[in-house]
């Protein structure tokens, strides 16, 4: 499994001065990857590619966009109508955000199912959560830029969340706005930050990869690899598997871009922002809906905000809330069922978040919110202690795979 020597004389000369070639060889050829990774492990590299697509399309869009309250909407429509392929770039960027979140959420739930956050990968998990938080900030500010009705009112509602904090709340909100309402200064700074944060994400992704390569990928069995028979080089095996996954991803993504580009946006965002008229039904983008539901489920303003942020921050201590010694849900019969309940709970929260806060939606939202925290704070620690796990296989290699095979749902 040793890397082939560098044969090209120029590359050798260059590598002697800047060891990028040997670094790549080390990462691709020598870096041992578990041989049993399934397709759920494709989503990490897919997320990286999403980030690249977002930055590439974002940079060229930025060349055409004007961050000013009286021109932002018009400049976006100019992109759609007059710029060469402007419609394509904008639809790629707009729907790319949704695809990015879809991919990252699958990546997160894969980690939850297979216990990828557990020792020694806690910091890797933290860095992933930091990336998720940065993505949310970036996506939120990007959504404001077209300056449609939903852009404006999303900005108003979300920035107003900070007013919930006693004493400092109001000054913070005024500071965020740069005025007494969401207006031109707000739009301008959101644009600056929307351009900046993706590069911060790139930095954290590099750290995420360094942390990953320290102990290597987890795997569907959740047991460490015990020798060379358990692993294969990343390249070519996982490069081609990732490329195939990328092809499937692109089919879904392009179908959305070319045939249903506005499926995931609210029509009202094609009406220019009007600070005097609130749309009757304000909803965030789909990837924020579960948090929005948690916010609305709690009748107290401050507690609602705390619960919403808490629902994410709590994930930082997940490695310690999960008391089980076993990583993979394959060998945890109770947790495995609870995982699906938790996933369903998150989807229910999203559905509640989409609907107006009336009637039975309020009750359902409150139950789902309570269960969200119950799962993480109470059920996970207890189940980890009391659950009788199934016997773990001796190694990743052949004989044990038979038993594990039928578990793949």
């Amino acid at each position, binding site marked *: 499994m040793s890397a082939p020597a560098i044969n090209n004389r120029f590359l050798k000369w260059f590598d002697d001065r800047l060891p990028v070639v040997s670094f790549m060889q080390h990462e691709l050829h020598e870096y041992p990857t578990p041989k049993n990774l399934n397709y759920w492990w494709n989503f990490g590299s897919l997320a990286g590619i999403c980030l690249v697509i977002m930055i*590439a*399309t974002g940079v060229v869009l930025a060349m055409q966009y004007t961050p000013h309250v009286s021109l932002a909407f018009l400049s976006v429509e100019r992109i759609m109508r*007059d*710029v*060469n*392929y*402007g419609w394509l*770039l904008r639809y790629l960027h707009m729907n790319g955000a949704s695809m990015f979140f879809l991919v990252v959420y699958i990546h997160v739930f894969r980690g939850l199912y297979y216990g990828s956050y557990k020792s020694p990968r806690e910091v890797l998990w933290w860095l992933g959560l930091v990336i998720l938080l940065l993505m949310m900030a970036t996506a939120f500010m990007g959504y404001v830029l077209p300056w449609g009705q939903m852009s404006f009112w999303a900005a108003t509602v979300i920035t107003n969340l900070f007013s919930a904090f006693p004493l400092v709340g109001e000054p913070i909100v005024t500071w965020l706005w740069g005025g007494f309402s969401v207006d031109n200064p707000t739009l301008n700074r959101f644009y600056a930050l929307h351009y900046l944060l993706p590069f911060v994400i790139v930095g954290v992704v590099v750290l995420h990869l360094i942390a990953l390569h320290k102990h290597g990928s987890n795997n569907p069995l959740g047991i460490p690899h015990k020798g060379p028979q358990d692993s294969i080089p990343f390249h*070519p095996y996982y*490069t081609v598997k990732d490329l195939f996954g990328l092809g499937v991803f692109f089919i879904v993504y392009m179908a959305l871009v070319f045939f249903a580009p506005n499926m995931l946006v609210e029509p009202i965002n094609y009406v220019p922002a009007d600070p005097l008229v609130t749309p009757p039904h304000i909803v965030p983008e789909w990837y924020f809906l579960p948090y929005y539901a948690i916010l609305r489920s709690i009748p107290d303003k401050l507690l609602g905000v705390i619960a919403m942020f808490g629902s994410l921050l709590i994930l930082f201590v997940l490695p310690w809330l999960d008391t089980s010694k076993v990583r993979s849900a394959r060998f945890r019969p109770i947790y495995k069922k609870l995982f699906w309940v938790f996933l369903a709970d998150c989807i229910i929260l999203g559905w509640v978040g989409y609907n107006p806060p009336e009637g039975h939606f309020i009750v359902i939202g409150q139950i789902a919110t309570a269960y969200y925290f119950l799962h993480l704070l109470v059920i996970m620690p207890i189940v980890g202690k009391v659950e009788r796990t199934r016997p773990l296989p001796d190694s990743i290699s052949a004989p044990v795979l038979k038993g594990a095979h039928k578990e793949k749902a």
Partner: protein
Amino acid sequence: MASTVHSTAHGAHGDGGTRRDFLYLATGAMGAIGAGLAAWPLVDSMNPSAEVLAVSSTEVDLAPVAVGMALTVKWRGKPVFVRHRTDKEIKEAEDVNVAELRDPQTDKARTEKPGWIVVVGICTHLGCVPLGQKPTDPRGDYGGWFCPCHGSHYDTSGRIRKGPAPKNLAVPAYTFLSDSKVKIG
């Protein structure tokens, strides 16, 4: 990215080796073509957009420009000098010995109608706007235009006569729609 795939061809040899190599090669080529095509929209978006191209020609009413007067119009973001030349200026422009010019061109080749000279008002040296449109402006040694940046002198046909500029002032494409109306671009 996909081109990394075919380097994997040097794996196991044996039966079906050629067919496999072909598959790797074809897939790599397909990926390279796809990536190239996908990059094009990003590049092309930086080319002039439809609303820029739509104003790439402009119509100018010449009726108010008396003999000896000049008019500056903006065309594609640049100044275009339109001067209604006097008979003296026309004669000066036509009498020049073309062979002696740095950028040899006859006045006839540079005008549609002898009375009107239309040039892009950008000095061919480093892109400054020469003086000479207003009656009070310095017009240089040859009665045309004078570039204040590095001292290029242009004659009444907009040809470079003295100074660092290498070429004559450019003549845009234009047509007279009538005696008093010209379309530039």
